[in-house]
């Protein structure tokens, strides 16, 4: 309980930390949108807007590709906002970073044309006598069988299981049956999925010590994460759930009362103001803390569930007239701040109506009157969509837009494919990723389990 006193005794006047404050600016934050308008089907624009690092080492410094693009703009006396596409076209045949691939080749592959360390050459087809153990270069059923058991059951197949698999007439059917069993295993629900949740929940032992919960209980978060991604459930509940899962695994509707005035250990947010993982008591406590405008909270929601990390100059969709610096933190003062905050601050307004630490009504409770500004002074925006009256609706509209966005399904597909492969997909695996993401709505009906069944059939997963 001592930590609580540390956090509460001191007067809170600052915003929370974070990875949020902006990198230096070149004042061209429209660049990502323009680039993706020119290359809408390029991997860099799938379920995202291209990161600033496409043209910058880190803004405002240009990388070699960015330098060439700007040189092309100058050479052609072109106007950035109107003619960027022309400049991009003019440097397509160049190899700005000297890695042996033209800029256009890199854009189509999904590597970075201004980074010599980012390149790709497709592997040659295997040659030679037949391999006695692996179907190299083609989908290998046995290889995939072992991989799925390790990935989703947390163990290798036994000798007997391998023998039975080798003898099976329909190996694909056996693979999918094995996957079904794995996805209900204690490994997947107790270890595999929780480890995928770690960086999204960001637990801190010291704020949840040995069963003593001084501020909030992240156990609710882990359980909801696992629940939404297992069984015949809509994975969008990560952002849309209005319920919680108790320690017994049962769905709990309604407000969950916690201890004391702070409602510690409960889930005090009103049901109609809930948005799954991003309105839990833990999420709001650990990210909002004392911030009147909880930028860290919004940025983590954007990063964890839409795959857009503003700290890495990703997902920048600046809003005209922003940042307003509504909480007087000087983010409109420095050119370096404006660059990210024009996107970040509009993302954050909706979260200002939920308590962090020290607000009346309990940690994480919805509180329409929490911010000092009037609702009419700001306009919340996510992915270019205005969110309306966030004082009345909280972040529910934020979550609706997010859960049905290409970014959400891309992020989910990427999370699972990266986990399965133990690394990010390579350029020749991006089509698999794209197919997984695009099929999430219609083919999978938003079920993570169904997406995983498609995943284990991909070449990325099964070709040794």
């Amino acid at each position, binding site marked *: 309980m001592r930590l609580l006193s540390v956090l509460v005794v001191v007067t809170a006047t600052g915003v929370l930390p974070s990875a949020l404050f902006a990198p230096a600016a070149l004042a061209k934050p429209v660049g990502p949108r323009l680039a993706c308008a020119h290359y809408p089907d390029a991997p860099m624009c799938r379920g995202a807007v291209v990161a600033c690092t496409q043209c910058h080492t880190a803004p405002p410094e240009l990388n070699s590709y960015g330098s060439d693009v700007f040189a092309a703009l100058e050479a052609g006396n072109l106007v950035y906002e109107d003619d960027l596409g022309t400049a991009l076209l003019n440097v397509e045949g160049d190899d700005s970073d000297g890695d042996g691939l033209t800029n256009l080749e890199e854009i189509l592959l999904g590597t970075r044309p201004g980074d010599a360390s980012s390149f790709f050459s497709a592997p040659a087809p295997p040659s030679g006598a037949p391999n006695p153990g692996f179907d190299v*270069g083609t989908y290998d059923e046995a290889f995939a069988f072992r991989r799925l058991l390790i990935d989703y059951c*947390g*163990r290798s197949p036994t000798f007997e299981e391998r023998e039975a698999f080798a003898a099976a007439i329909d190996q694909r059917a056996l693979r999918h049956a094995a996957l079904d069993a794995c996805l209900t295993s204690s490994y997947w629900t107790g270890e595999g999925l929780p480890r995928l949740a770690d960086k999204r929940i960001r637990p801190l032992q010291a704020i949840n010590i040995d069963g003593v919960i001084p501020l909030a209980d992240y156990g609710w978060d882990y359980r909801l994460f696992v629940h939404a991604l297992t069984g015949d459930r809509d994975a969008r509940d990560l952002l849309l759930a209005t319920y919680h899962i108790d320690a017994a695994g049962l769905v709990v509707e309604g407000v969950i009362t916690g201890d004391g005035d702070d409602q510690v250990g409960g889930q005090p947010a009103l049901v109609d103001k809930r948005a799954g993982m991003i309105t839990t008591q833990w999420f709001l406590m650990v990210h909002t803390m004392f911030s009147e405008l909880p930028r860290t909270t919004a940025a983590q929601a954007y990063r964890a569930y839409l795959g857009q990390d503003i700290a890495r100059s990703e997902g920048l969709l600046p809003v005209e007239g922003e940042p307003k610096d509504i909480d007087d933190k000087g983010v409109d003062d420095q050119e370096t701040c404006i660059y990210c905050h024009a996107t970040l601050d509009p993302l954050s307004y909706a979260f200002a109506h939920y308590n962090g630490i020290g607000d009346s009504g309990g940690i994480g409770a919805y509180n329409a009157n929490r911010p000092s500004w009037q609702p009419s002074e700001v306009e919340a925006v996510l992915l270019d969509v205005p969110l309306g009256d966030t004082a009345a609706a909280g972040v529910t509209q934020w979550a609706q837009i997010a859960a049905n966005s290409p970014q959400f399904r891309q992020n989910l597909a990427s999370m699972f494919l990266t986990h399965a492969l133990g690394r990010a997909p390579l350029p020749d695996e991006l089509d698999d990723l794209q197919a997984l993401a695009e099929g999430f709505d219609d083919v999978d009906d938003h079920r993570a389990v169904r997406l995983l069944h498609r995943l284990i059939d991909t070449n990325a997963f099964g070709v040794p």
Partner: protein
Amino acid sequence: MLVVALAAAGCPELSPAGDVDSGVPDDVIDSGVADEVDAGPPPPPFAISTRNRLAWKRQRALENDLLIALALEKADLCNELGLYSCIDFVHLVPLGGNEPFSRSQYEPLPSPTVTTPIALDRVALSACRARVDQDVAGVPVVFASLDFDAAAVDAEAAAAAIDGLGKRLLGRALTPGEVEEFAALTIDDDGAAVSPRDFAVLSCFAIATMSETIFY
């Protein structure tokens, strides 16, 4: 290229180890000077992977595989100083795990570290010793072919034990050549017989730490 890369970080400051066959010439290990001559590996006898995209089997799957293969309980596995779990604590990170709660490690390392092979050796040695101890003390589960009271291991018993270990630890039948290689563990470097207990630990350890046990 491999030889050059290895030599670039040679270690003249520390006494190099010369007693383990590394597969690269000793002078490369010792000198710390790049060997510019690289004949490259011999041509493979069959088509090999050109994608080469293996994944790293992380600590929990490693643990589960050892528990299943050797019919052990979790408590039987490696504990440093007899107290601190190798897999869950001491060697968690080099074995591919992460500790989000107390160390803020929200993601595991992407690839093995320089200490991963040692951590694997420790975990495998402990597990194998535990299995052998239990087989010696009670009804043998894994090493039924061995007579632990004998002074040496006969060839047939050794082959049976090795074959069983291959199936348990690798999930496959070892080739005759592999069985023969591992059967050399029935003797020491001087040709003297190794005790059945030691042979059991050594053969188990050698097979349990093959690279195919932690990559897939």
